[in-house]
Every structure is written in structure tokens, then in C-alpha cells.
């Protein structure tokens, strides 16, 4: 069953404003989201991720392109006629209704019989472990509890897709970690497709089956957490997800020649032109300055507890960072100003587009 496409955006453009002042919040976006997966839209604020979510929910209509649900065009369907529910960033709980009334709202609007509404509301309250709060007003709940009500309310009508718009951003760190696990559990238990919007890369990496990294109204890369981290497609993805070092040089057969004259092995490289590669800081190895290693000088050492960050300068001034696991003594055995030789773990060097 996993693998079938549930939501499909085809060449979607969304422009706000008109004429010269128009802003393209989404610029020709196409993406397929599969049945039952936890799909995350990740990107900095203003990248268009929330706009895409709102288009899927039906709060906005695309300027161009279509949005398909199970193969049917739903681009112009109003939100109340789409089997898609949203968990809002602000939760948007109805302040004049109780917790149970909030959860029952969607079911009542769908005209479900009273007994079914009652049973499903009770089941939802149990699912999010809020049975004791059923008759409370939502303003009497803590932030975490409000979050659970918002989830239960959106899940109650058993939507085909659940949309979550940065739902954890208002919670403190500890609660956020708990809710991440909770969300994952709910997704597995219900089997519903989750589309999750966040700007927090760690949240995206830990929770998602697949991630779409967005920037400037475009999808930059779609893939699993590992694919995106290990094989970033371009400079933006590489720098947005985790820390990285960029090295630029001339392409040679199976290698890259840096301006310093050093040569880095890059399997599959073909000669011609200027090329950028990236290497994660934890993939750098420091050893004696000898042949086969790139010469560098230690600029500063910053102790982070588990790691020590070693800032290095190559002979042409290019700065790179190595992340070294701190030994038991805490002393990395390096001194500022020391000459070292840098090598890379096999397969750590990735070519990226600019």
C-alpha cells in the first residue's frame, strides 16, 4: 500500500499581489507524496512551505498548476470539501467550546450520527491521553495539552492526509522532544499520510520518511534524511542541513585540484571547469603533514563537550572546520598554530551544484 501517490502537486505556481509587485511564493513546484508516509517540507521562513501546505488544505488556490488527491484534481475545491485536515501552528482551538466539543466539531459538520461522534471523540481523547480533560475549556489547558487537542481534532474525521504547520514551534525543548515521539507514534497507529512543515532540520531528520527541502519558492531536493544529508544536491541543501565545508577547484579525471595545488580524490569526476564539493566536518581526519594530505594550520580549537571543533586554514587562506570526537582527557592533542595534514573519509566528498 505504501508507494501509491496520495497528494501530487503538478507545476504549482502561487503568486501574491499583482503586476510588478507580485511575489511568487511557489515557483513551479512539482512533488508526489506517497500513501502513509511521514513527509516533511523543510526550509527557512519565506521559502513557500506553508503556502504549499495551505494550497493542499484549500485555504489558497494555485495561480497555475494543479493539486491532485488520489488522482483527482482538487485545486479549486473549498477546504470543507477536502478529506484533508490541518493542525494549525497557533492550534486555532475554538475558545467557546470544550475539549470534547472541539474534537467532535469536524464529525458533526460531516453529519455523522450522534453515537458515532461520541464514540470517535472518546477514542480520540484516549488516543491523545486526554480523557480527564474532556469537559474543560481549551484555555484551561497547558501548551502541550492544547497541542494534543489540536491533533485529536484534526485526526477525528479520519482524513486521508493530515497537514501539520510547524505544530511544535510554540513548545519548549523538552516538550517538543516528547511530542516528536508522540507524533511519530500517532502516525504509525493511524497509518494516515502526514505532511509536516518545519524550519527545524533536526526535527525533519529525526521524524520524516522523506523530506523536501525548499528555498525561494522551489523544491531543492526530495529524499530520505540520509540521502539529503549524505548526498546534498546543491550548495543550499548542503549548508541548510547540518554544517559543511565547501571546497572549490578545477575538475580532473577522478579528482579535484584545489587552488593550493592539493589534489582530492573524487570518484567519477570528469575533467573540465570549476567544481564545488562539500565535506561534512565529522568526515575530516587530521594527521601529520605528509604527502597525500592537504596541508593546513590550526587556527582555533573550540571545546563542545562531546566534540572539539578545530578551525583550520589552508595555505591559500580557505577556512575549513573539522569536528573531532573529544578523547577521555578532553585534550585533542592539537595546539593552535600547529601544522597538520587533512584527509577525508572514503566517500565523504560530494560534488554539489551551485
Amino acid at each position, binding site marked *: 500500500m505504501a508507494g501509491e501517490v496520495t497528494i501530487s502537486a503538478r507545476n504549482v505556481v502561487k*503568486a501574491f499581489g*499583482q503586476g510588478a509587485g507580485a511575489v511568487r511564493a511557489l515557483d513551479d513546484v512539482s512533488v508526489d507524496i506517497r500513501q502513509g508516509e511521514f513527509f516533511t517540507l523543510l526550509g527557512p521562513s519565506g521559502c513557500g512551505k506553508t503556502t504549499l501546505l495551505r494550497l493542499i488544505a484549500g485555504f489558497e*488556490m*494555485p*495561480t*497555475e498548476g494543479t493539486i491532485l488527491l488520489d488522482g483527482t484534481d482538487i*485545486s*479549486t475545491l473549498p477546504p470543507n470539501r477536502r478529506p484533508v485536515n490541518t493542525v494549525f501552528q497557533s492550534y486555532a482551538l475554538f475558545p467557546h467550546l470544550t475539549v470534547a466539543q472541539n474534537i467532535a466539531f469536524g464529525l458533526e459538520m460531516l453529519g455523522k450520527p450522534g453515537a458515532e461522534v461520541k464514540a470517535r471523540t472518546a477514542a480520540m481523547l484516549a488516543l491523545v491521553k486526554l480523557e480527564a480533560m474532556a469537559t474543560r475549556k481549551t484555555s484551561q489547558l497547558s501548551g502541550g495539552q492544547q497541542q494534543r487537542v489540536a491533533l485529536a481534532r484534526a485526526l477525528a474525521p479520519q482524513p486521508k492526509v493530515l497537514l501539520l504547520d510547524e505544530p511544535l514551534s510554540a513548545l519548549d525543548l523538552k516538550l517538543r522532544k516528547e511530542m516528536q515521539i508522540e507524533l511519530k507514534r500517532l502516525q504509525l497507529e493511524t497509518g494516515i499520510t502526514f505532511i509536516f512543515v518545519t524550519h527545524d532540520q533536526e526535527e525533519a531528520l529525526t521524524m520524516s520518511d522523506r523530506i523536501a527541502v525548499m528555498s525561494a519558492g522551489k523544491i531543492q531536493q526530495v529524499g530520505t534524511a540520509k540521502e539529503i544529508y549524505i548526498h546534498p544536491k546543491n550548495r543550499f541543501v548542503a549548508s541548510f542541513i547540518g554544517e559543511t565545508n565547501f571546497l572549490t577547484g578545477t575538475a580532473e579525471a577522478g579528482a579535484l585540484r584545489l587552488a593550493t595545488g592539493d589534489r582530492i580524490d573524487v570518484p567519477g569526476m570528469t575533467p573540465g571547469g570549476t567544481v564545488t564539493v562539500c565535506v561534512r566536518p565529522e568526515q575530516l581526519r587530521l594527521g601529520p603533514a605528509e604527502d597525500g594530505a592537504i596541508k593546513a594550520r590550526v587556527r582555533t580549537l573550540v571545546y563542545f563537550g562531546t566534540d572539539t571543533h578545530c578551525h583550520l586554514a589552508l595555505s591559500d587562506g580557505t577556512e575549513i572546520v573539522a569536528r573531532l570526537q573529544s578523547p577521555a582527557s578532553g585534550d585533542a592533542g592539537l595546539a593552535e598554530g600547529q601544522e597538520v595534514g587533512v584527509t577525508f573519509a572514503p566517500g565523504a566528498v560530494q560534488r554539489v551544484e551551485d
Partner: protein
Amino acid sequence: MSPAEDAVRQRSDRNGWLLVTPALVVLALAAILPLLVMLVYSFLAPGDFGNVEWEFSTDGWTSILFQRDIFDGTLSLADAHLTIFWRSLWLSTVTTLLAFVIGFPTAWFIATRPVQQRPIWLFLVTLPFWTNLLIRTFAILEVIRSEGLINSALMGLGVIEEPIQMLYTDGAVLVGMAYVYLPLMVLPLYAAIDRFDMRMLEAAYDLYASRWQALRRIVLPIVKPGIVAGSILVFVPSLGAYVTPRVLGGGKNMMIGNFIELQFGQGRNWPLGAALSMTLLIIVTIALLFYVRAANRPRADHG
């Protein structure tokens, strides 16, 4: 723009118009169209027993300032009319000043109370504002008339033998209007002072300003929008006042409002009354435009 987006937008605009239409109909019937009809009436000739004759005439407008000699038909300035205009402007201006002099310290006092006390003080200012204007005018009447509170108290104390005639004077109208419109001065002033950052006063004192200098050089310039708002809110209704001068000024100390009424009563000169009303409306509009300009003027914001 896609057709669907276009449709949503058009529906939104159409709904907006549909929703405001009933209000506009009521307002058109009982507030806006009558003003246009009155404009037409100001260019007609007066009927013998009130109302108008349907013939074009500018007499309504010219007789605002001039009177025609009955015998030779020459125009001369109508002194009685000018006196009424002058009194209206003068009384309204002094009322505004009086309300400011009393209202500013009052607003300052409220704004410097502890936060939880302020709503109570504000309520005390708002209550008289929402109380029937007529009742408040009657209340002032009780205080200043010959057998009223002040005269009774003074005579009781033996300060005076005979009651002082305070009622039916310009002073009575002035006191009455300042009393009646004071809350309209206090409320916008309070809003402005409430936004004022008291640390700026600390800075002023730190830089050797005296209290008076700090008030004049720092506080007043910054709360100026509130002062303008309060002044307009007092000046405009003062200029158009009808009840207060009628009750406290008696028949003699007329203001424009009473003069307009006279044209529709004993004066039987509807075109003149209509022209006077339009004149009042124009003056008020100018004052309001001045206010809008002052309120919208970009200023260095501090918040």
C-alpha cells in the same frame, strides 16, 4: 491570476458590498441624502409660513452675513448675525482651552495611577460622557442657578446677601460646555500619555531639565497627536452645540445651533437655516480634515 483565484476574489468583494449595503441604505435615508436635500433648499426662496418656494435664490447664503435694507435694497453687514458667529467661535475656542487646562492634568493623573486602578478612573471619566447630555446640563443648572447650590452655599455662609446671576450668561454656557465635553478631552489625552515612555522623563531630568522644562520640551511635543484629537473632539461639538446654550444661555445668548433652529421656528426662513447649517458643516469638515492630516502625519515613533 487563475480563474479560480479571480472568482474567490470577486466573491469576497461582492460579499463585502452586500454586507455593508443595509447599513448604507439606513445611513443614506436618514443621514446623507437629507444633507443633499438641505443643500438644495439653501438655494430656494423662503415660504411665507415656513417651508420654501420652489424658485432659485441665493438670498439664503447672502443673508448669512448681510442684510438687505427694506427701503433701498442695499446690502449691509448683519451685525446680529456676526455677533452670533463671533460668540460661537469664541465660546468654542475658550471651551477647548478650558477643557485642555483641566483635562491634561486629569489624563496625566489617570495615566500615572497603578495599572490595576486605571480602568476605574477611566470608568469614572466615561460614565458622565455616556450620561444624557440634557441631564448633565440640568445638573449644572442646579448648581449655578439663583436658588442653586453655589448661591445657597454662599448665602448660607453669609458671603453674599443677594444671589449672583450666573445663569443665562456667556459664562454659564462656557462652564456648561466645558463640563459636558471634558471627557472628550481626557480620553484621547489619556491614550497618548499612556503610550508615553516615562523613561524619557528620567532622561530629561538626568540632562538637567526642570519639571516645567521637561513638560514643555519633552512631554507636550510627544503627546501632541492626543492634544489635537482632544481639541477637535471638544471644539467640533461645541461649535454645533444646541442644548447647552439653550438651557444655560436662555434665549439671548444664542450660538449658531440655536440660530439655525430659530430659522425653522419663528424666523420662518428655511433657506437661511439650510445655508447656515451648510456653513456649520463646512467649518466642521475643515476642522476634521485638519485633524486627519495631523493624525496621519508620520512622526518619529518610539515604540
